[in-house]
């Protein structure tokens, strides 16, 4: 594929144009390419003045990161590695794809070190393109790579960064609604960033009902599975709890094989909830009498977890959504202040097997397929999932 060049539009003060090089991933509603952002001459000059061979660049970059919350990661000549996400035209002939608009709308407003950075947007021949920072790895790849070992400090560091990103979204009253390891992207400096905001939307509006067919099945909270249409921050916190568990187990914690089956899987793992556990659950649209499973102490499954880690994880996986901590509460949990200290991002384990590393910026999945929870070509994951189930039951 020949590299193509596109002029910068809204970020034209900083970048002169973008070069699209090669395809790195594809989803149902977007294709992702890697490429370069070429600076304007003025920007290049500023960059040269700010950097020199004594490594001052790191200082400047770090200071800028502190001040603006957004890291500057450029090559010596001022170029920056980028990902270009090209949104496909919606099939339903409704014009611009709603998910594309949604993702662009949200990323324009959320600027945070733990949220993927939107650099620019441009359109070319009725295709909407988003220029994003380039992130070549995601948490799913690292979890699955058996050659990489995690320590408790590593897990804590990833959880810390995830929760900071989630907190930023919630503080702006935006729910991500598709948190999973595949959407937690990692930079080469080890920073974790939330990605793929195609399902994101605002919440807290009493006039608006939302769809319950959101979040990839294995990470979908019980209230969503029971058809809740007015929900809140807790759906994201449940997903974070599932991710926490997965970091410890190295396999997905509750991998159901269908939407009906997902609830069963959850009940088997955590016990069927009672009215006392979850007041009002009987009023949920898809509620019916469930098979009763006993509650298993999670301590038996998560043998390597420290008590504070287990406490936090359990709280995020409570049935009653209002009892789950907010991202702010989670960050204040003593888990993060106890030893061991979270590993500094640069020292986190990296995916050493480059041949196995997957698609870079996660291309999104069509919302309908999302709800059915297709995990893509994931043979390994499904086998492991069966193994976990066997172990649990």
């Amino acid at each position, binding site marked *: 594929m020949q590299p193509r060049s596109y002029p910068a*539009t809204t970020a034209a003060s900083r970048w002169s144009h973008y070069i699209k090089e090669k395809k790195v991933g594809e989803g149902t509603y977007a294709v992702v390419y890697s490429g370069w952002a070429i600076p304007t001459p003025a920007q290049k000059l500023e960059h040269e003045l700010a950097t020199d061979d004594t490594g001052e660049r790191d200082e400047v970059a770090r200071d800028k990161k*502190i001040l*603006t*919350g957004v890291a500057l990661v450029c090559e010596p000549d001022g170029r920056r590695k980028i990902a270009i996400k090209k949104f496909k035209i919606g099939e*339903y002939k409704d*014009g611009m794809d709603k998910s594309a608009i949604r993702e662009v709308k*949200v990323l*324009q*407003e959320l600027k945070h070190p733990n949220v993927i950075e939107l650099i620019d*947007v441009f359109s070319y021949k009725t295709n909407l393109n988003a220029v994003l920072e380039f992130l070549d790895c995601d948490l799913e790849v690292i979890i699955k790579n058996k050659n990489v070992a995690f320590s408790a400090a590593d897990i804590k560091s990833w959880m810390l960064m995830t929760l900071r990103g989630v907190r930023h979204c919630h503080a702006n009253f935006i729910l991500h609604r598709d948190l999973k390891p595949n959407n937690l992207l990692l930079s080469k400096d080890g920073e974790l960033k939330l990605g793929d905001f195609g399902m994101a939307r605002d919440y807290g509006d009493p006039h608006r009902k939302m769809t319950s067919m959101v979040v990839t099945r294995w990470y979908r909270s019980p209230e969503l599975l029971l058809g809740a249409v007015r929900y809140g921050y807790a759906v994201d916190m449940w997903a974070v709890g599932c991710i926490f568990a997965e970091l410890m187990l190295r396999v997905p914690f509750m991998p159901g094989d269908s939407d009906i089956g997902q609830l069963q899987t959850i009940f088997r793992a955590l016990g069927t909830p009672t009215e006392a556990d979850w007041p009002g659950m009987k009023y949920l649209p898809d509620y019916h009498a469930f098979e009763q499973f006993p509650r298993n102490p999670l301590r038996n499954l998560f043998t390597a977890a420290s008590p504070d880690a287990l406490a936090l994880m359990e709280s995020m996986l409570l049935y009653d959504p209002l009892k789950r901590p907010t991202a702010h509460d989670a960050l204040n949990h003593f888990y993060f202040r106890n030893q061991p200290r979270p590993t500094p991002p640069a020292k986190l384990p990296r995916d050493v097997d480059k041949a196995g590393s997957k698609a870079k910026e996660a291309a999104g999945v069509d919302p309908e397929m999302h709800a059915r929870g297709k995990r893509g070509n994931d043979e390994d994951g499904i086998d492991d999932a069966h193994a976990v189930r066997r172990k649990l039951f």
Partner: protein
Amino acid sequence: MVDPTAEASPQPLPEPYEQCSQYRHWKHSAAELQHLRQKVNLKAAARVRKAVAEQQELTRIPAPEPVCITWDEQLQYCQYYEERIRAYCRKLQFDRFVEATALAYFKRFYLRNTVMEYDPKLYLMTCLFIATKVESAHISLATFLENIHKSPSPDMMIELEFSLSKGIRYEYMVHHPFWPLHGFLLDVQNYISSTHPRPAHEHLFQKLQRCYSRAEQFASNATLTDLTFTHMPSQIGLGCLLAAARERDFEKELEQYLASRFHAKLDELVKLRIALDAVADAVVAQSTKPPIAKEAAAAVFKKLQGCLNPEFDPESPL
């Protein structure tokens, strides 16, 4: 030696509102607005004249020197169409968020573009359609076009969507005064409960509620004005409440509330009062302003025919 990878002690990030696109790119003073509109208009006029001249050379059809629209004619013309947007929202039963967002897009687009090159009739539809997507009130394109008078073809809509999106810098999130206004309703309620004795609550809450209803109307009016550029949504919301308070005999209580809430920021409060007065005057003026007459719009339309930029005409040789 400082480990460069260690956690730096957290510096405060900018205030949340400072990160939103509305504040960063779409905030202008009244003077700036006028300057921008004039500049855009003059540049556009130059382009139009040049293009007409070129076309004349190519086609050998003599055409009179184009008499271009002025910036205030454009402003009036756009205001006419903004009122059309409102009418469509009522007809299609879109809520005030969709309406306000569509209006914001329209205003922003024509702040930096000219009606001599972009047809407001087409763009108002586009603003509405995208607004429904952005504000989670999506309807299908087919349904939408059925209800629009002289609607464009679906294919054209997609191109218009892209053109509009580019014109608004792909910054789809717009903040309106409705949430802040509601926030003040709640907070004033809180203030009343904590500073007045119980027996007085009932009466005061009712006054507050009446005040709020009026303020909601003002807030809707505000979205038709330039206030969306010149002031923060929170200031607009509070200004609407103030304007309503003056009408509904609640001003005294509101002043007390402000003095109490901002007792630690008295200098800023003085400046804020000036801003609130400006907002209140603007919304009151808007509510008493008559709608733009159809004839006035028609006149501009006629003039426009003589100064459309041929570069934007698909049928022109350019």
